[in-house]
């Protein structure tokens, strides 16, 4: 035991107090009891899987996760195209659909989307992928019920107009005779773009859009009102975001409204 010059304890004192008073010694019985406890634990211990086996299992799990993740990502990216069939009409090899009876034709897609073509209506399936399709309404009335699924992407062409849909229920009427488009939106939202609104018009549930001879108007569906024929202002910048029709036309408004940029 030593003390420093200032009589304060040093690390040597610390070492000494522990080394002199703390040992690992126990009596013989205590020692034997510990040994028996260890031997008993070794006897009853379940054999542990070898490290190689553990690594193999871990590797297998990681591989399975990677494969399933990759498959999911691949499916998300490129997935199988939607399937479809037509009832009550004819489908040509080029995707042209025409109703053959008074009740019209139904186009049913594998994601649950349904397109009902009224008697006399004509449509074309322009493209189909894993997330939706591009349909062209050649003429007549179509009622669409688009399945609202993550990543869904549907487009409907009607003459010079394009309707962009994510998941919704609406009717489209396109007359190639007088170039008149009518869209009744029952559920969801969609964007309609065309010569009067190159940047697109956002349509919300409960609204009707009508476009005729360069004029475009939006009104509430109920009660049905006559569409006003008001000239549109200059087309907006094509790069600009779609116009908010809702801002200009409350869904419950009975007054026909013309969308302005």
């Amino acid at each position: 035991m030593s003390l420093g010059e200032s009589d304060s304890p040093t690390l040597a004192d610390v070492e000494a107090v522990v080394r002199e008073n703390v040992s690992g010694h126990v009596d013989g019985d205590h020692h034997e009891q510990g040994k028996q406890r260890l031997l008993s634990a070794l006897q009853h211990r379940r054999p542990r899987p070898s490290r190689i086996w553990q690594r193999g299992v871990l590797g297998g799990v990681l591989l399975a996760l990677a494969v399933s993740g990759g498959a999911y990502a691949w499916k998300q990216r490129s997935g199988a195209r939607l399937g479809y069939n037509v009832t009550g009409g004819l489908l040509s090899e080029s995707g042209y659909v025409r109703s053959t009876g008074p009740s019209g034709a139904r186009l049913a897609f594998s994601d649950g989307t349904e397109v009902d073509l009224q008697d006399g209506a004509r449509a074309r399936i322009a493209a189909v992928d894993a997330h939706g399709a591009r349909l062209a309404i050649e003429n007549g009335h179509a009622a669409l019920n688009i399945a609202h699924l993550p990543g869904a992407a549907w487009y409907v062409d009607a003459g010079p107009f394009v309707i962009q849909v994510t998941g919704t229920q609406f009717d489209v009427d396109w007359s190639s005779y007088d170039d008149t488009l009518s869209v009744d939106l029952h559920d969801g939202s969609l964007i309609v773009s065309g010569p009067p609104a190159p940047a697109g018009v956002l349509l919300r549930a409960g609204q009707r859009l009508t476009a005729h001879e360069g004029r475009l108007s939006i009104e509430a569906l109920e009660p049905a009102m006559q569409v006003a024929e008001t000239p549109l202002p200059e087309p907006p910048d094509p790069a600009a975001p779609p116009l908010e029709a809702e801002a200009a036309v409350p869904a419950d408004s009975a007054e026909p409204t013309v969308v302005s940029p």
Partner: protein
Amino acid sequence: MVSSPQTSRARLVALPSPTLAQADDATLARAAAAGDPRAAGVLWDRFSPMVRRLLRRTLGPGAEVEGLLQEVFLRALQKLSGLPEGAQLKPFMIAVTVRVLSGELKRHRVRRLLRLQSPWHSADFFTGADVTTRSALSALYRILDELDADARLAFTLRHFEGLQITELASAMDASVTRAKRRLARANARVQAAVSRDSSFSAYATAASLGDAP
């Protein structure tokens, strides 16, 4: 090795050494790795006093260490098969003990923070010494409680077990530089704390006068 010249189909059978208790570390390690049922007992006889001492000196003489002692040996027996040929068993056992202690110290620190610690460092738990010594030990382990696990282990291994810095670094699986840094940090904090502690000063004064045992 036993051979049987009387039979036409003699077999060579490897028998464990009848003197495993006196075998060197390498032989004992090989026997344990091969599953020799006597190896665990021999390992216990040879190293349990050292491991128990290390556990007690690190955690404090009042700590309950028998469960940790069992854990050290169970871990060591699992890992013996991976011990390189010719490796010494004592550093290996110290390294396994340090690993077990490191986990225990971290748990102990959390329990202290949650105020759930057991009263290991009460002077009442230290037997076999006079009141002054028991108070000094109690004060010392309260000071050590303030160190993080790595610094506390470095301090214990160097000052209580007398390991050289390279041995200490090896036991803690750290570089020599890092081990030195941990030890220096621990030395400074312990030195400062014991200098201010009245219990420890009383012990040191009594020892210098020859009153302490």
